[in-house]
């Protein structure tokens, strides 16, 4: 049972890390876009305008009711058919996970903003702050404190969810792992055990660190 050596034969380990980077890059880009889209969306969803609030709820529930994989399938297979634009699996994944992430991020922002109690606004107004000052000095700092740990947690959720891209044919870490296993079928017959264990712990190392960072943030800011 020294088949674990397959992990470090040639450039195998680098290749696995490269595969991991493929899915992480999708996650990172999607998280960035989700922030850009989700924050204004969440602020709009926390407003008093019922159309804005209702519209956001419709969007959020429409995204949430289906599994992300089904969204990915619909987008990848259907949209290229209708629009005649041949979007790569990679680009489709970024688009779908941005749609998904923006909804989740929007909901977090909405939750953080609406969790500020009414007396905070009233006290600030009573102290003579104008509406802009109330937002900038009272609402935003408190919302950000509540939002930050949850937003960091959204990054780990995004990383875990982007592992789905293997199902639409993106060559990421599991696919690279499969290739390594197939090439070494005779030399290292039990390579599958070690390669998939390695992938498991790679994901764990990254997500666990980020979760812990979120927990630390939560303690510090609370």
């Amino acid at each position, binding site marked *: 049972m020294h*088949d674990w050596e397959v992990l470090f034969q040639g450039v195998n380990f680098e290749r696995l890390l490269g595969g991991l980077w493929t899915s992480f890059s999708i996650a990172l880009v999607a998280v960035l876009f989700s922030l850009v889209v989700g924050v204004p969306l969440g602020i709009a969803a926390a407003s008093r305008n019922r159309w804005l609030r209702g519209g956001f709820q419709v969007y959020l529930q429409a995204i949430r009711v*289906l599994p992300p994989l089904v969204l990915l399938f619909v987008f990848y297979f259907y949209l290229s058919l209708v629009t005649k634009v041949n979007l790569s699996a990679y680009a489709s994944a970024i688009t779908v996970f941005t749609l998904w992430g923006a909804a989740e991020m929007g909901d977090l922002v909405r939750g953080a903003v609406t969790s500020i109690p009414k007396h905070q606004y009233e006290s600030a107004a009573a102290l003579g702050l104008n509406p802009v000052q109330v937002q900038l000095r009272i609402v935003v700092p408190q919302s950000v404190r509540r939002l930050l740990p949850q937003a960091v947690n959204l990054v780990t959720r995004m990383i875990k969810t982007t*592992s789905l891209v293997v199902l639409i044919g993106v060559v990421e870490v599991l696919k690279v792992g499969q290739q390594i296993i197939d090439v070494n079928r005779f030399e290292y017959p039990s390579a599958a*055990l*070690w390669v*998939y264990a390695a992938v*498991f712990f790679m994901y764990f190392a990254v*997500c666990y660190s980020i979760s812990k960072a979120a927990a630390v943030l939560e303690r510090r800011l609370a």
Partner: protein
Amino acid sequence: MDLSTLTEYLPLYAQAAWLTLWVGVAGIALSFVIGVLCAAVRHFRIPVLRNVAGVYVELSRNTPLVVQLFFLYFGLPKLGILISSEQCAVIGLAFLGGSYMAEALRSGLEAVESIQTQSALALGLNPVQTLRHVVLPQAVAISVPALAANVVFLLKETSVVSIVALPDLVYVAKDLIGNDYNTVEALALLVGFYLVLLLPLSLLFAWLERRLRADGRRAKSRAPKTLGSWAVKEAAHA
């Protein structure tokens, strides 16, 4: 969209939906059992076991189901552990879900203030009665929204079981797209069947949560702090 294609495909999807439902129900039931065990072990601070449970929860929560399934299905046979596709999917779902259930139950147990236990003991209830009549009813009520959310989450997670060669809804859709190029029909049925499975459940749980919250508000305005009202009110914050 072609209606005859839809009717032709319908039985295939119905069969696949049963599989999805079966794997989902079995996996969720098992994850609830694991969750109860882990939450109990950690809540009562049982030595060694609580550490095992702690490591398990972190491993399960910080890895994706796809990766867990790949390891179970392709990795474990190399150790001589052969499991069927169905078993693999159920075990994978339970491995993932167990930690989510455990965390939901644990946060419920932790939300019951220690004064509740102290008061119960002071009133002469023994530890078992305290747990049975005072702590558990409140803890479970607090956990319900999180547990319900987990059920929906896990049912959605079953969508990846096609990677362990199970003919679920996604598998059928992909197969039909590849074979017949009837992409629109195949995807419409995929979305339709998932909506049939998930929408009623989501609506039911949303209604349940609203009701719990409304009960909490009403109970709160009625002032005297009974055990029941306290639990429900707290549920709204969970």
